[in-house]
């Protein structure tokens, strides 16, 4: 059943906003998504009716909060096909999830001289933690090259995998180019040589069906706020046996079973990794967001985004002087579209569009190595989600024409 976008839009109060008298056209969901009323209400209800700290509380409010909190974990586990909710660790964002793997798992399991394989299109969050651990442990970082269409070059991958990296960590979908990487096929090759496979799924979990068993990944990082949930929510999925053998990164309350003056016993999974009071309302909101998306159906979400992205690529190609980055093959890309218009600086373009109520993102998209590879200082990025319409694409295109005239190109 295709997405009923009119109905979806009615669920998002913010979409009624006007910017300088013009209706908001929100095309920045790859940065963070807007939130449906059910999520906002869930947060509101938590604070009005059962605000309490989770776990160990022997009173009604704490029990209710704990149940709601842990239900979100079960929901998320089902949503991405984890075997058990123990494999779901709540963190602040996908960045923290990747840092947790790098600083806990990789730091303990990699030796000087070991190689870590990344790709040229990674977000800084999947580069910088590895650089930090590499410096400390004496690791070598390699990067799978991309071709001019923004697709990972299989020959480069095949060559680098021969160097027997201990880790292969890659984005499922590029935040800057929208490319969907063949994670499953690459994970299979990486596993053949014994590498641990980590998937940065911040840009895929909100937009398409993602199943960790199908992808055959060992770890997966996702971010809640990009999938209708509140900010400050992220998830690290890890295979149970890997997580069991990992040391926690942060110590404190919640993550212990018993503490003595000279010794400590860690708590069980998943709480071993969740020191301190968590983002309770955020995680409860994440559970509601998962329900909302599940009800829409992730395949329907994907189909809607394919339709709007295909339309956007066609319409944008008609704008004189507009350079599009990334593949045109709709099967191989998600709903983030990067472009530059003539020699207009990406920030100027974003400001001109903002004047017309259109929110896009411009800059290096936390992917400076990719920008260097594309030989541009910055790009503008329009990213679509369940609430965006073809009409909004038309508004974007009209605004780009205005910008073109304004800057005489």
């Amino acid at each position, binding site marked *: 059943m295709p997405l009923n976008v009119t109905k979806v839009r009615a669920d998002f109060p913010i979409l009624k906003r006007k910017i300088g008298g013009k209706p908001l056209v929100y095309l920045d969901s790859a940065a963070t998504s807007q939130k449906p009323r059910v999520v906002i209400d869930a947060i509101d209800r938590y604070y009005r009716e059962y605000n309490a700290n989770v776990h160990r509380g022997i009173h009604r409010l704490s029990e209710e909060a704990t149940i709601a909190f842990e239900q979100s974990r079960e929901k998320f586990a089902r949503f991405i096909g984890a075997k058990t909710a123990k494999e779901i660790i709540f963190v602040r964002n996908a960045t923290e999830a990747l840092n947790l793997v790098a600083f806990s798992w990789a730091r303990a399991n990699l030796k000087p001289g070991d190689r870590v394989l990344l790709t040229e299109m990674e977000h800084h969050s999947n580069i910088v933690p590895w650089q930090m651990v590499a410096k400390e442990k004496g690791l070598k970082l390699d990067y799978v090259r991309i071709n001019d269409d923004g697709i990972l070059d299989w020959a480069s991958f095949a060559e680098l995998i021969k160097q027997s990296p201990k880790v292969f960590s890659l984005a499922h979908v590029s935040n800057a180019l929208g490319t969907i990487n063949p994670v499953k096929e690459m994970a299979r090759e990486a596993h053949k040589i014994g590498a641990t496979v980590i998937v940065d799924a911040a840009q895929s979990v909100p937009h398409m069906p993602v199943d960790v068993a199908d992808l055959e990944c060992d770890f997966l990082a996702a971010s809640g706020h990009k999938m209708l949930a509140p900010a400050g929510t992220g998830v690290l999925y890890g295979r149970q046996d890997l997580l069991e053998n990992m040391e926690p990164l942060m110590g404190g309350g919640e993550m212990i079973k018993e503490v003595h003056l000279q010794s400590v016993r860690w708590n069980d999974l998943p709480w071993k990794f969740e020191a301190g009071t968590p983002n309770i309302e955020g995680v409860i909101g994440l559970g509601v967001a998962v329900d909302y998306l599940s009800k829409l159906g992730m395949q329907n979400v994907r189909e809607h985004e394919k339709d709007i992205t295909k339309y956007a690529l066609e319409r944008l190609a008609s704008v004189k002087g507009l350079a599009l980055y990334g593949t045109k093959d709709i099967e191989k890309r998600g709903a983030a579209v990067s472009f530059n218009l003539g020699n*207009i*600086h990406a920030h*100027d373009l974003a*400001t001109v569009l903002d*004047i*017309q109520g259109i929110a896009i993102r411009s800059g290096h998209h936390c992917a400076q190595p990719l920008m260097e590879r594309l030989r541009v*200082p*910055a790009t503008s990025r329009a990213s679509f989600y369940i609430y965006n319409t073809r009409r909004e694409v038309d508004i974007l295109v009209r605004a780009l024409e205005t910008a073109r005239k*304004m*800057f005489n190109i």
Partner: protein
Amino acid sequence: MTKGIYKETILDHYRHPRNYGDLPNANARAKDSNVLCGDVVEMQLRIDANRIDEARFRGEGCAISIATASMLTEFAKGKSIREIKKLGKEELIRLLGADPGPGRIECALLGLEVLKAAIDGGQDPTGPEELDR
């Protein structure tokens, strides 16, 4: 349609920057960049008796950074060093005739900072950024 910060004067200075290029007899210069957006501005000045006789700039970047640098070279000519040093965000917005807003004010401030740096110390305008790409 409202053009916001992109008033005709600003677009004109962006398309046709004034005082663009090298100043052969410059005795003060500075260059800086805004790493986040890749804007680079270099100022070359001729200062005599605490007064700016000539100002030229070279730069690369967004319309706001280039237009501001261009307008500042016109503004600076004939002004005393003290007058330039007193310039702040408010004066800059007045000079531009529009407020770029919190997200873009840094683009405008780059030119002013470089102008002040040239007056202050005239650092050697060499750096990792290449102007001629």
